[in-house]
């Protein structure tokens, strides 16, 4: 007599931390994030005080009724947070999502740029 063991499949949410490059150019800081398969309508950018949070969900799916032969990536969610320093001018942050890459431009605040102080002679 065989006994069947029933396995309960838990649908777990897969959350990835996306590959990110942070660099500085002359005009400010740039953050590039790899978000393959993400469309603009599923991307969320939240700025709370100094915390910048990025959340996204992939929109691709495997072709219908196909057999999995080899898998190296799966659909899921992306989530990552960054703490911005005061040098960044938060009102002027620009974001662009193109071809699965999120580009964030973080300009430096005017007051952070070095200002010359005038010396008057007494």
């Amino acid at each position, binding site marked *: 007599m065989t006994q069947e063991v029933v396995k309960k499949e838990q649908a777990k949410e897969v959350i990835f931390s996306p590959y990110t490059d942070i660099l500085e150019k002359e005009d400010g800081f740039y953050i590039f994030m790899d978000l393959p398969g993400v469309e603009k309508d599923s991307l969320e950018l939240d700025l709370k005080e100094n915390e910048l949070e990025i959340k996204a969900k992939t929109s691709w799916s495997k072709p219908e009724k196909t*057999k999995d032969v*080899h898998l190296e990536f799966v659909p899921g969610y992306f989530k990552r947070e960054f703490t911005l320093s005061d040098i960044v001018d938060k009102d002027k942050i620009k974001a662009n999502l193109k071809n699965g890459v999120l580009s964030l431009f973080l300009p430096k605040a005017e007051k952070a740029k070095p200002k010359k102080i005038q010396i008057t002679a007494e």
Partner: protein
Amino acid sequence: MVIDFETFYNFPRQFDRLFDEFLRPNIISQKRTAYPPINIYEDEENIYVYAELPGMDISKIDLTITDGSLVLKGEKSPEQGTYYRQERPCGIFQRVINLNVPIDVDKVKAKMKNGILEVVLPKTVESKTKKIKIEA
């Protein structure tokens, strides 16, 4: 300077993620050293190859079929600037996918959407399974 505190304050979460990595379903390839990540699906009519290539210019991707293999080559050039953190892969990449059935090369279609390259390779008519009649 932009500071990322994630690595310091999320220590318990890092541990959870470490265990999640090991407990993932076996069908996902453990070796993630090859770039780009590739998925292969199959049905009666076609073989489907999906690759994660965000930010790749279509003109910089070289996709060819040679001798029963699909070859995906290209170069991802990094942005110019002073880097504080680099995680995104860059440089020249190449992956060879062996096709175990004959493919109708002229009907292969590829498209790039949101950084995911989707290639559809139709199988030749002869290689589709045909029912064999057994004569009494």
